[in-house]
Structures are given as structure tokens and as C-alpha cells.
């Protein structure tokens, strides 16, 4: 047993947990496991990020190195909820098959549904996404659905039974950040299930912006894994997520055109305003 120092959160910083299906998370950062150098770097980045939910992909086994280490060896399942994705699926049927395969390995009903339009843009295909959501919900899956930032589509996905709606900030892996904050803002007003901004995060400020808008969480992968120093970026993303969330809860000041002095206008040793030119 190692001694741990529990630093109690003061009541004025307390936050409610993020609840997705049957899972309760205190971290609002969801982190992908792709593109890391090796299992050791994956393990370290996940730990530093503070995440409690990590995504994985389903792929054919490499028959030449079948006995090698599994990614599952690097992920402590007592610590992380594993969220399998259907990345690489371009139609509803493949996505459903992929989800079924993942459920068989992981014995989880969770799935991050992706039905993509084409390999160049990786934009979500709205029709295929709706079809697959409907089918997976029918089969008892808890569907966290990757979608565009279209607010009405988010509503439709919620109506079909998705447990979380995950709008892209910008294309997957593009690092362009949140391209249409107003769409996300409207989506957040219309959708009641957790809205998790997924994809496009390039740096810490993108995470903070998503959280300041009121997103329930942020899912990212490339932003950490492809940073020059992934572990340092994992820490930055963790802090940005907390900072953005606290700023959202605290309530930002309205934007104004003119200045508003922080120091009192009274008690000056001279008359207020610029002196008249002599």
C-alpha cells in the first residue's frame, strides 16, 4: 500500500460528476489510446491526463504477432472505463458489427459510434449515424454518438436513445479547435444528455473553450499523442479541462465594448479624466 494524500476539494470548487449510462466520472476528459509510441507511453499519458474513460478501436488481429502484448495489458480496467469505438466504419451495418465484436471482448454495453462519410474528411455521415444509433440502442448498447455540430441532428440522436451526443469541434485529428462555438452552444441548449466535444482539439485552450461553452466533457486523442511532448500535453489538457469547467460554473463576465476600471474612480489626487491641454 502506498500512502496517498487526499486533498479535500473545498466546497466552493465542488462539481457534480459526469454520468454516462451506468458510469460516474469525476474527470471530464475522455482520452483516446491511438498514435502513442508504445504501451508504456499510452499508460503514462492516460495516468497524467487524469482521465477515467479511454477509447479503443477494433481491428483484425495481426496473425504474425498474435501472442504479443495486448493493448488491454496497458489499461487498468479497475481504473479506466473502456469505450470501444467504431472508427473506420463507413456504413451502419459495419458499425453495428464492430460494436458487437467490441462488446464480446470487453463485456461492456458502451460504444462510441462513428459512422464516417469518407476517409479524407472523416466527417460523420448523418444518415448512417442515425441508422446505427437506432439499431444499437435496440440491441441494448449505451451509445455515445460522434456527430457533426448540427444542433437538430443532436436532438434526433438523443431522441433515438443515445446516452451522450459528441459533436466534432472540427475534423478528427485536424487540430483546428472549436470552429463553430455558436452551433455547440445551441446544441447544448437543445440536448439534455451529456454533450461531449469530440475531435479537432489541437491544444489546451481548445479544451478550455469547449468546457467554458458548457460541454459536459471533451474527448481527444491526437492532441496529446501527437504533441512533441505527449506527457506534458496530457497534463496541459487535464488542467485546461478543469479550468474551463470551473470557468463555466463560475460564470464569465459579459463582453463589453468599453473599459470598466477595476480601481475606484473616487479618491483620486487629481481631477478625473485627462487634464485639459494647457
Amino acid at each position, binding site marked *: 500500500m502506498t500512502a496517498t494524500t487526499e486533498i479535500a476539494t473545498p466546497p466552493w470548487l465542488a462539481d457534480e460528476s459526469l454520468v454516462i449510462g451506468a458510469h460516474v466520472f469525476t474527470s471530464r476528459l475522455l482520452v483516446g489510446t*491511438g498514435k*502513442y509510441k508504445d504501451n508504456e507511453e499510452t499508460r503514462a499519458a492516460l495516468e497524467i491526463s487524469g482521465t477515467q474513460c479511454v477509447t479503443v478501436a*477494433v481491428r*483484425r*488481429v495481426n*496473425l504474425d504477432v498474435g*501472442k504479443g502484448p495486448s493493448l488491454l495489458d496497458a489499461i487498468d480496467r479497475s481504473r479506466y472505463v473502456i469505450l470501444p*469505438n467504431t472508427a473506420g466504419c463507413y456504413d451502419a451495418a459495419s458499425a453495428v458489427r464492430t460494436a458487437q*465484436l467490441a462488446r*464480446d471482448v470487453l463485456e461492456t454495453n458502451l460504444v462510441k459510434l462513428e459512422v464516417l462519410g469518407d476517409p479524407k474528411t472523416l466527417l460523420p455521415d448523418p444518415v448512417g449515424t442515425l441508422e446505427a444509433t437506432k439499431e444499437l440502442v435496440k440491441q441494448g448498447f449505451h451509445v455515445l454518438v460522434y456527430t457533426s455540430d448540427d444542433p437538430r441532428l443532436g436532438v434526433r440522436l438523443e431522441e433515438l436513445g443515445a446516452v451522450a451526443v459528441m459533436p466534432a469541434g472540427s475534423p478528427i485529428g485536424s487540430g483546428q479547435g472549436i470552429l463553430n462555438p455558436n452551433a455547440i452552444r445551441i446544441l447544448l441548449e437543445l440536448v439534455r444528455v451529456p454533450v461531449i466535444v469530440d475531435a479537432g482539439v489541437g491544444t489546451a485552450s481548445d479544451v478550455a473553450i469547449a468546457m467554458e461553452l458548457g460541454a459536459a466533457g471533451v474527448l481527444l486523442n491526437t492532441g496529446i499523442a501527437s504533441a512533441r511532448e505527449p506527457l506534458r500535453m496530457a497534463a496541459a489538457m487535464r488542467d485546461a479541462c478543469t479550468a474551463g469547467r470551473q470557468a463555466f460554473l463560475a460564470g464569465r463576465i459579459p463582453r463589453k465594448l468599453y473599459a470598466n476600471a477595476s480601481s475606484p474612480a473616487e479618491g483620486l489626487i487629481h481631477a478625473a479624466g485627462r487634464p485639459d491641454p494647457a
Partner: protein
Amino acid sequence: MTGCETIGIELNGERRELARTSVAGLVAQLGLRPEVVAVEVNQTLVPRAERERRELASGDKVEVVTLVGGG
């Protein structure tokens, strides 16, 4: 049908000849850890609990998948 009958299947997109076996037998032959893979035959999942019972036949299209890093 005899015990040592050879069948031809398509395994992860490649033709393979092997002695007639079950899905569980195939996973073992490939040297895979059964708990980190999932198998579908002809685009239908063969759940882990059914791998022993499910015999493979010539012409079956078999996919054996695992989990890898991804977002």
C-alpha cells in the same frame, strides 16, 4: 465427414487451409489469447460462450479481431 478433414476458409481476408475445427480451436491454433479477441463468421458474431460449439465449414469467412489504440 472424418475427423481430419481439411477445410478452406477465408481468415481476415486471406485464404487458409486447416484441419476441421471449431472457432475456439481456430483461436487456439493461431496462438491467440481467447480473452482479447472476438470472432465473427460470415458477418455474424460468434459469442465467446459459443466458440467451442461453433464448427467451421469450408467457405466460411472468418474475422478475428482485437482491440488496438484508437480515438
